[in-house]
């Protein structure tokens, strides 16, 4: 009889009664699954994130133990001997505890960036290097959000991580957050990927508000062809130069450019394929469920999360505005005018933001093909965010 009572007390239903907030988290996870599956919000990451969130909030399941990574350290001894429980016993480490090591040690975001590099064509950027200015301006959202977050009482480390949401690059945001404010990984990842999926909703009104119909109709000259040699030199030169300027950005830029060199060199096709397919897919699954698993009720269900979600929209908005406005400013001096709609693509969210530029532009002028022009700022924004991330890591990294 006592055994049965003990058994019932070990069920999740009993444990839920002690920690009812986890039920709310299960609902949140299901909402995210809905967004991922039905609304197709960046499902590659949002589905694993949501499932990780679900698993971590099943009371008693013990698939993830935040204690293993408390105080910013990895507690190897607990990996060896199990996690101490309140009742004096120990519990073996769970699946996500092990997978989370890849986040904690910064491995997954870099490996994903290798895959992203394998899939990125920097040709449009090399053909039109001015794009880099737009990619720089679109980082405005990051710093505006940093100000906002600091004023709302977040620490500089947390404010940096929240600001990076405005970079619209998942791996960059997760890399910075895992280093500076791992306690915010859950909400920041959710915000970053949700708003990336919402780019077609967030950006167009801002783009239209800041431009005239005439500006939106500007047609741009066709891009020059880029030689293979330039494409091969680009990743090498960028890695060396950016890393010397800002060593703290070297991991992200180096990983991205390693992938791009594997792509453009054309001599390691096998490696290129694996890096952008199976390796990246595997890491994506592991990264998603690990990041999701940090979103426990205690970490997620508080006013901070709401602030982060609000600040995330601000970040995307100001990034969009920054890009558009700098394009308008540049037009004051340029003979061949830039269509300011491609400025918004500088927030990255590759290639979604570039497509938004194309769609908005074509609405005004059906013969206007902005996609390739927008790809320049789009990929420049990836570099820009990595540089911004490097600044934060240099200032606040341990």
């Amino acid at each position, binding site marked *: 009889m006592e055994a049965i009572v003990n058994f019932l007390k070990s069920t999740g239903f009993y444990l839920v009664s002690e920690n009812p907030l986890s039920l709310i988290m299960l609902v949140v996870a299901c909402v995210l699954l809905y967004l991922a599956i039905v609304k197709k919000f960046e499902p590659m990451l949002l589905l694993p994130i949501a499932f990780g969130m679900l698993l971590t909030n099943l009371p008693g399941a013990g698939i993830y133990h935040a204690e293993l990574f408390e105080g910013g350290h990895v507690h190897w001894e607990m990996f060896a001997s199990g996690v101490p429980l309140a009742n004096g016993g120990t519990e073996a480490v769970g699946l996500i505890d092990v997978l989370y090591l890849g986040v904690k040690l910064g491995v997954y975001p870099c490996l994903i960036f290798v895959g992203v590099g394998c899939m990125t064509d920097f040709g449009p950027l*090399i053909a039109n290097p*001015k794009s880099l200015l737009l*990619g720089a301006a679109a980082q405005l959202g990051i*710093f505006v959000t*940093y100000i906002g977050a600091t004023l709302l009482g977040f620490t500089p480390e947390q404010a940096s991580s929240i600001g990076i949401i405005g970079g619209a690059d998942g791996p960059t945001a997760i890399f910075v957050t895992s280093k500076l404010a791992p306690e915010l990984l859950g909400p920041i990842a959710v915000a970053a990927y949700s708003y990336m999926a919402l780019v077609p909703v967030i950006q167009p009104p801002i783009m239209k508000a800041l431009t005239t119909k005439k500006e939106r109709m500007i047609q741009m000259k066709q891009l020059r*062809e880029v*030689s293979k040699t330039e*494409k091969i030199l680009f990743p090498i030169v960028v890695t060396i130069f950016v890393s010397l300027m800002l060593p703290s950005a070297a991991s992200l830029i180096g990983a991205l450019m390693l992938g791009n060199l594997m*792509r453009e060199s054309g001599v390691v096709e096998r490696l290129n394929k694996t890096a952008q397919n199976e390796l990246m897919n595997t890491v994506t699954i592991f990264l998603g469920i690990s990041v999701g698993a940090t979103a426990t009720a205690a970490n997620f269900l508080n006013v901070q999360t709401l602030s982060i979600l609000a600040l995330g929209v601000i970040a995307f908005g100001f990034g969009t505005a920054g890009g558009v406005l700098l394009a308008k400013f540049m037009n004051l001096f340029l003979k061949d005018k830039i269509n300011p709609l491609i400025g918004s693509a500088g927030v990255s969210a590759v290639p979604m933001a570039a497509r938004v530029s194309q769609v908005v532009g074509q609405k005004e002028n059906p013969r206007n093909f902005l996609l390739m022009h927008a790809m320049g700022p789009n990929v420049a924004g990836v570099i820009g965010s990595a540089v911004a991330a490097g*600044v934060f890591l240099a200032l606040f990294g341990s």
Partner: protein
Amino acid sequence: MGEIGIAQVVLMGLITVFVVLICLIIIIKLMGAIMSKAAPATPAEAVPAAAPAPAAAPVATGNKQQMVAAIAVAIAEEMGTDVSHIRIHSIKRV
């Protein structure tokens, strides 16, 4: 790095981002200038990393029947083996 004001962070951040990316513009332009001097541009589009098209040419000539058999076997094996390793064990006249 001790106490560092909000304004300082934001200024330093924006300036760094712009400085680094402007330097990249200069570097890319330099690179392009050197390239165009060094050689009459060989456009990337003309030399794509993976150019499978030519492989089709030799196939589209000659005795059709045997080719069908050969190709059919190749496809069949491809399907059977899932990813790689095309092996033509025999080519028979149909």
